[in-house]
């Protein structure tokens, strides 16, 4: 086996690979940019080599720098992770030339699968089901319309070199086909420098389901079941699971066998993923093959018990697969939630900065539940603007899908992240969404279920009631502590009452609390609740048993109560004496300040330019200014017609969220 491997990546995937390498007794080398000097993968690796400044194009994807790190450390093999150089044939070629093993497929396979048109042709030749469409290059809009009519609407117009949703258009008629062709072509030219376009059938009710394959250099190839990755936001996967709630064994087998035959057709070795789109009638069509380890590989590992990274390393070393197709048993259900530093309340805008708090739930494994958290960050670490904003991949496994979802909900409730905006509340909300729970999902799930964005989950009554009684019992503890302050007037101490009113979401819940050493009996209306917890004052996470069922709350103080976060809801819970509650009805509802006449900075960033001047009349949609954040230029446009009355920021200014950029009359 290799003595030492280098991981040409960063973040959670570098940490993930290091873990397996360490288990196998292989020494590890991390590479890092200046932004990652103190990163977790650097701390975990046996050696670490600096490879340049923060931007990836000056560090992680500069082949020469990686090669130099390999030379310096004498690493015998390189695991590329995903992204960066993982699917760069030049890198694989260069390693080969210098006698260093690439823990991935051969260069030829990467090249063959790297181009959408080539890969589709190869797939057809290998007997893989593909989406009906026109494979050749399309000259002009007229030809595009002709082909579209032949295939039958709706059609998808795609850039050959495309990815991530860029250069893609759906057309439902001739006019849209004409227009879509032109805009895809333009976008492809500017984004990829390659304006080749093809057209295919647009699949309705689509699900994204992919097959994991493993092939060795000895002609063996197997498939490890599928992953359902339909929960996507703008083509970015958010929640994945294995197996798919939709596939039957026949379809699984057919997809798996086709995937393996495609892999074999390109002499594939290592782990790879064949992505399919599956329609409502379980017709499946080949999309593309990813010639690397996927982000979501842990769910496959959890249901198969196979360590994919270990297999990749063994295959790269030249070992033959020790697992046959019949050895692959799918056991139970696994879920993965991707925690991103994206603020769901602000239309998922990236949020960067310091993780002032990062406390994931503890990893654990038993016969009924596995909790796994793949991460590359730590409390006090930094989410940098230079890279992917992923914080962690939280996975749960359980014998059934329902249990895996339940465990995921609990795990998300117990995951503390502060300091930056993140999508955890959104993930929680999806876990509780009836349509997600039913398994009736498509790639349009998020678009359809959250058309106006995410504004926090609304809890079902029974969940809200549990929070109400827990809050009451917790607040009473805080009040009892207050009454134990020094300097009290002897014999005239405050006696903390048992009757309280919990006010939340505009509702009043009168409760009576009978506390004892182990917890409290809380009566609410005609319902009795037993509340028990080891929570102590000041703790930010409370695990409370309400009538025996676990409630995990993120707790922080507000005047007269708590801010409670649970299941994607963010609640202000006031616990008041009956008298205070009665008087609270006189308090005026404060209307939030009108911001419609202001342009607020939507994210922390740098003003690149202001496009208007004081006195300008602007039209709806007109560009007002450009803010650079996460190395992305964000164009801020006028939401309505108006006249600029004041400009508070100019090019070069660094602004925080909600800083006022300009005002309108």
């Amino acid at each position, binding site marked *: 086996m290799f003595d030492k491997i280098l991981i040409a990546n960063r973040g959670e995937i570098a940490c993930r690979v290091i873990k397996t390498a360490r288990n196998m007794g292989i020494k590890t080398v991390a590479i890092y940019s200046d932004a990652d000097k103190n990163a977790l993968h650097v701390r975990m690796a046996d050696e670490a080599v600096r490879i340049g400044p923060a931007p990836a194009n000056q560090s992680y994807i500069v082949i020469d720098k990686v090669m130099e790190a390999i030379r310096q450390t004498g690493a015998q093999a390189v695991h590329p992770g995903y992204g960066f150089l993982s699917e760069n044939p030049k890198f694989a070629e260069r390693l080969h030339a210098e006698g260093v093993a690439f823990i991935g497929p051969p260069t030829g396979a990467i090249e063959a699968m790297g181009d959408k048109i080539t890969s589709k042709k190869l797939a057809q030749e290998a007997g893989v089901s593909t989406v009906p469409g026109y494979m050749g290059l399309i000259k002009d809009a007229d030809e595009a319309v002709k082909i579209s009519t032949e295939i039958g609407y709706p059609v998808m117009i795609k850039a050959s070199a495309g990815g991530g949703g860029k250069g893609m258009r759906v057309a439902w008629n001739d006019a849209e086909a004409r227009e879509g062709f032109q805009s895809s072509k333009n976008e492809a030219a500017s984004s990829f420098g390659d304006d080749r376009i093809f057209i295919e059938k647009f699949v309705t009710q689509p699900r994204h389901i992919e097959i994991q394959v493993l092939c060795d250099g000895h002609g063996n190839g197997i498939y490890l079941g599928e992953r359902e990755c339909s929960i996507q936001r703008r083509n970015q996967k958010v929640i994945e699971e294995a197996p798919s709630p939709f596939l039957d064994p026949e379809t699984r087998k057919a997809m798996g066998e086709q995937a393996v035959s495609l892999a074999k057709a390109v002499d594939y070795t290592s782990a790879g993923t064949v992505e399919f789109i599956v329609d409502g009638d379980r017709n499946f069509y080949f999309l593309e093959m990813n010639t690397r380890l996927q982000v979501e590989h842990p769910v496959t590992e959890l249901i198969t018990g196979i360590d994919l990274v270990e297999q990749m390393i063994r295959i790269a070393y030249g070992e033959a697969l020790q697992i046959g197709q019949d050895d692959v048993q799918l056991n139970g259900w696994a879920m993965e939630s991707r925690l991103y530093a994206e603020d769901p309340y602000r239309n998922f805008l990236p949020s960067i900065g310091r993780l002032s708090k990062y406390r994931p739930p503890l990893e654990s494994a038993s016969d009924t539940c596995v909790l796994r958290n793949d991460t590359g960050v*730590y409390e006090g670490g930094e989410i940098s603007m230079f890279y992917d904003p992923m914080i962690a991949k939280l996975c749960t496994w359980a014998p059934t899908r329902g249990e895996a979802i339940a465990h995921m909900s609990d795990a998300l409730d117990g995951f503390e992240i502060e300091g930056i905006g993140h999508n955890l509340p959104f993930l929680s909300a999806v876990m509780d969404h009836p349509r997600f729970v039913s398994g009736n999902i498509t790639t349009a799930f998020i678009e359809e279920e959250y058309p106006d964005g995410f504004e926090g989950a609304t809890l079902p009554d029974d969940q809200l009631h549990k929070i109400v009684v827990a809050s009451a019992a917790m607040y009473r503890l805080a009040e009892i502590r207050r*009454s134990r302050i*020094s*300097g*009290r007037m002897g014999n*005239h101490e*405050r006696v903390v*009452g048992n009757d309280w009113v919990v006010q939340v979401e505009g509702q009043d819940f009168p409760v009576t609390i009978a506390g004892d050493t182990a917890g409290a009996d809380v009566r609410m209306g005609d319902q009795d609740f037993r509340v028990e917890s080891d929570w102590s004052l000041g703790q930010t996470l409370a695990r409370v048993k309400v009538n025996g069922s676990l409630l995990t709350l993120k707790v922080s103080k507000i005047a007269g109560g708590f801010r409670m976060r649970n299941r994607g809801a963010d609640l202000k819970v006031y616990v008041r004496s009956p008298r205070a509650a009665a*008087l609270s009805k006189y*308090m005026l509802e404060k209307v939030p300040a009108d911001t419609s006449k202001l342009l607020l900075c939507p994210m922390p960033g740098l003003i690149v330019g202001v496009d208007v001047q004081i006195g300008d009349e602007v039209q709806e949609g007109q560009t007002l200014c450009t803010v650079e954040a996460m190395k992305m230029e964000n164009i801020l446009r006028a939401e309505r017609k108006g006249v600029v009355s004041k400009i508070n920021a100019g090019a070069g200014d660094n602004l925080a969220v909600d800083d006022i950029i300009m005002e309108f009359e």
Partner: protein
Amino acid sequence: MTDIIQELQDRRTEARLGGGQARIDAQHAKGKLTARERVELLLDEDSFEEFDMFKTHRCTEFGMDASKPAGDGVITGWGTINGRMVYVFSQDFTVFGGSLSQTHSEKICKVMDMAMRNGAPVIGINDSGGARIQEGVDSLAGYAEVFQRNIMASGVVPQISVIMGPCAGGAVYSPAMTDFIFMVKDTSYMFVTGPDVVKTVTNEVVTAEELGGASTHAKKSSVADGAFENDIETLTEVRRLVDFLPLNNREKAPVRPFYDDPARIEQSLDTIIPENANTPYDMKEVILKTVDEGDFYEIQAEHAKNIITGFARIEGQTVGVVANQPMVLAGCLDIDASKKAARFVRFCDAFEIPVLTLVDVPGFLPGTSQEYGGVIKHGAKLLFAYGEATVPKVTVITRKAYGGAYDVMASKHLRGDFNYAWPTAEIAVMGAKGATEIIHRKDLGDADKIAAHTADYEARFANPFVAAERGFIDEVIQPKSTRKRVARAFASLRNKKLENPWKKHDNIPL
């Protein structure tokens, strides 16, 4: 006998109605509670003992003798907050608009005198249209009697003013002399002269809210120490503040049970100082991770944000926290910050509250506006306040401590008891670049040489060790063990005794 008791009941019922149901309803309609309801929420349930419920005014001018409501527009008495005694007065807007008459002021003076004798805080709830014009000079005399007591009580018992309605003209000066002023957003305002007079005299058009609302005073003028959303939130937070304060200047700050390990290690503080010395970080995170249960009561949160002041607890006991905030103006000291912190430190010293100072200060803010504004004297206030303070003083320098500002921020030389520095501290006369350009002026034309000199200076002086070699820093500590070290330092200072020389009073540069 029963008749007499019944009469008491009837009189009480009448007194409790204040200015009558219609006015109570009007008060409620404005989102305001009545004077009595406020007292009820401020104090522990059923703990209020009222004085002078039946006191009435004695004015006979302008037909005033026709209406003599019991209590005369202010409710006074004492009660407890979490079992600790406080005196309270609460002006009743439903009676003559809460205006201050001679008898009204006598009631206030009575509780203030008792508070002084018995050593308990005074909390005044202000909701008054001002002087009772009909009483003329008697009303003015009444104000002055209250003012004199505010002055005498200052530094003896804590005085808290809660502004829950109008507070204008001479009336503002009583709150102004108390220790803390809290205001309710949208329903309270304070000014010496109102919008009408302002318009007549200066032609300035301004609303009452803009001129003297809660935001104005909490952000701009610093008259208010805090602004809250409504009456209930305000009173809840005043109760919370009282839990931090001693009852009087002869007692130690209160202690209450705590559930936070004094030796808690905060690994994440080891990474809070950014690589680049010019990059800000949030000093509040350091505060929250150092004190008990992350519980911090900030004073003047919205004003002079380049310095943070507030109360917290360590091992259950109150400490005052003063900290430079690198997120705002790089944490430098300016006129506003100096005044804000100086007043806070003096309050702590007056009431035996130990002071924790967290330092990251690049110096004083330069500029004509600062110099013309008298930053010399205002900066000196903070210096003076720290220097005269005899309470336990623990200081932690997290990053920059440059120049005169280093001296000011509770340095060893100002009788700091424990002066700690993180390894990231840079204690120097100024930043490397500036120092190099002065010391090596002859090389100014040679960028390479200057760069080399700067690097040398950084290596030699941009650290805590030069100061530590001289004993100006007692110990260089690990950021992650800040809570533990600070807690132990304060624990060791519980019996600290230090006295300033006798003097009538000092002459702080006001």
